[in-house]
C-alpha cells in the first residue's frame, strides 16, 4: 500500500513538473511574441543580431547540410524508385518521393540537424550565462536579454529551419526528376503536374507552419531549459541533457500531429 502511494505521489510530481515546464515554455513564448509585436524592438541592433543568428544557424552549415540532404535524397529516391518498379507502380514514384521526402523526411531531418548543431549550443550558452550571472550583468546595464540574446535566436531558428528545409526540398525535387527521367525534358510536364497536384495551398501552408514550429522547438526549448539551470556549474550538462530530450520529444510530437492531421 505504501509502495502504491509513493508511486502515485512520484507520478503526480512528475506530471506537475511537466506542466510546470510546459507553462514556462509557453509563458516565455508569449513574452517573446509580445516583444516581437512591439515596434520599439525593431531597431538596428536587434536586426543585426537576428542576421548574425541566421548566419550562424543556416548559412555557416549550408554546404555540409546540402551535401547531407543530397545523399539522403538520392538514397531514398533510389529505394522508392526500385520498389515502385518491382511492383509496377513507376507512375506513382514521383508523387511518393515528394510526399515522403519533401513533405516529411527532409523537414524532420532539418529540424534534427539544427537541433543537434545549434539547439545544443544555445542550451549550453544560455545555461552558462545563467550560471555565470551574465544575464544579471546585462540586466544591471539595462540591456534587455530577451531583445539582445533570446528573440534573435528564436527568429534565427524559425527562419533557418524554413529556408534549409525549403532548399533541401528543392534539391530533392531536382534529384527526383534526374533519377526518374534522366537529363532530358521528356518528363517535365508530368513531373510538374504531380508537383502541382501535391502542393495545394493547404499542404504548402501546413509545411511552412510545421517548419516554423520545428524552428521554434529547436530554439525556444533550449533557451528555456538553459534559463532553468540552477546557478551551479555542474548542472550545465544536466540542463543540456534535459533540453535536448525535450527538443527531441517536441520534434517527434510536431511530426506525429502533422501526419495525423494530413492522413487520418
Amino acid at each position: 500500500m505504501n509502495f502504491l502511494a509513493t508511486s502515485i505521489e512520484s507520478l503526480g510530481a512528475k506530471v506537475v513538473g511537466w506542466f510546470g515546464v510546459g507553462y514556462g515554455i509557453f509563458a516565455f513564448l508569449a513574452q517573446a511574441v509580445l516583444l516581437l509585436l512591439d515596434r520599439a524592438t525593431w531597431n538596428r541592433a536587434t536586426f543585426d543580431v537576428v542576421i548574425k543568428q541566421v548566419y550562424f544557424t543556416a548559412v555557416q552549415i549550408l554546404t555540409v547540410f546540402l551535401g547531407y540532404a543530397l545523399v539522403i535524397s538520392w538514397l531514398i529516391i533510389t529505394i522508392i524508385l526500385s520498389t515502385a518498379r518491382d511492383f509496377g507502380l513507376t507512375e506513382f514514384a514521383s508523387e511518393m518521393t515528394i510526399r515522403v521526402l519533401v513533405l516529411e523526411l527532409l523537414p524532420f531531418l532539418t529540424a534534427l540537424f539544427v537541433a543537434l548543431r545549434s539547439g545544443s549550443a544555445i542550451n549550453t550558452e544560455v545555461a552558462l550565462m545563467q550560471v555565470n550571472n551574465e544575464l544579471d550583468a546585462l540586466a544591471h546595464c539595462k540591456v534587455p536579454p530577451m531583445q539582445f540574446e533570446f528573440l534573435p535566436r528564436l527568429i534565427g531558428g524559425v527562419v533557418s529551419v524554413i529556408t534549409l528545409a525549403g532548399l533541401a526540398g528543392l534539391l530533392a525535387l531536382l534529384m527526383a526528376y534526374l533519377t526518374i527521367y534522366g537529363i532530358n525534358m521528356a518528363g517535365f510536364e508530368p513531373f510538374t503536374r504531380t508537383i502541382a497536384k501535391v502542393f495545394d495551398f493547404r499542404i504548402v501552408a501546413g509545411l511552412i507552419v510545421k517548419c516554423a514550429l520545428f524552428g521554434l522547438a529547436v530554439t525556444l526549448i533550449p533557451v528555456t531549459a538553459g534559463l532553468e539551470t540552477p546557478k551551479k556549474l555542474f548542472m550545465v550538462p544536466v540542463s543540456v541533457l534535459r533540453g535536448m530530450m525535450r527538443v527531441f520529444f517536441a520534434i517527434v510530437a510536431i511530426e506525429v500531429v502533422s501526419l495525423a492531421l494530413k492522413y487520418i
Partner: protein
Amino acid sequence: MAAVAALPDDVARVALELPLRANLSALDNIALIPLYQRHYGAAESALQAQAMLDRLGYADIALLRDPDMTPAQRFVTKLARALILKRPRLVVDRPGAMLYDVPYPSFIRQLAAQADMTGTWEIYDFSWNQVLYNQALNSE
C-alpha cells in the same frame, strides 16, 4: 555585501558578480550600452566604446574576449562598461576579488585620474584591507 547588491538603479557597479559577456570582445561589451540604451548605430557605439578604452589607457584590449584578458584588463573593461552607463554613482565592489594581479588601490586611483569623469566613485572593501589604501595614499 548584500547591501551592495541592493543598491538603487542610479548606481553603476563594478563587481565580480557582474561579469562580461564571455563571447563578446571588450569593445562589444562596452558598446552594448550606447547601442541598446541610447539607440546609437553599431559604428557610433563602437566609437564611443573605443574612446572610453582610450581614455582609460587600454585601447589595445578592444578585441580581447573575457577568457583572454588578464584580471586588470577585465577590470578595466568592466569599469569602462560602468562608466559608459553615465550614472551619478559608481561603486567598485570588493576590488581585491577582481584585481589580484596588481596593487589595486593605486591602480584604481590611477584609472580614476585618467577617466576624468563627473560623479562619485565609491569602493566597498573589507575593513582589513584599509591598510592597503593607506599605503597607497602614503606612497604618493
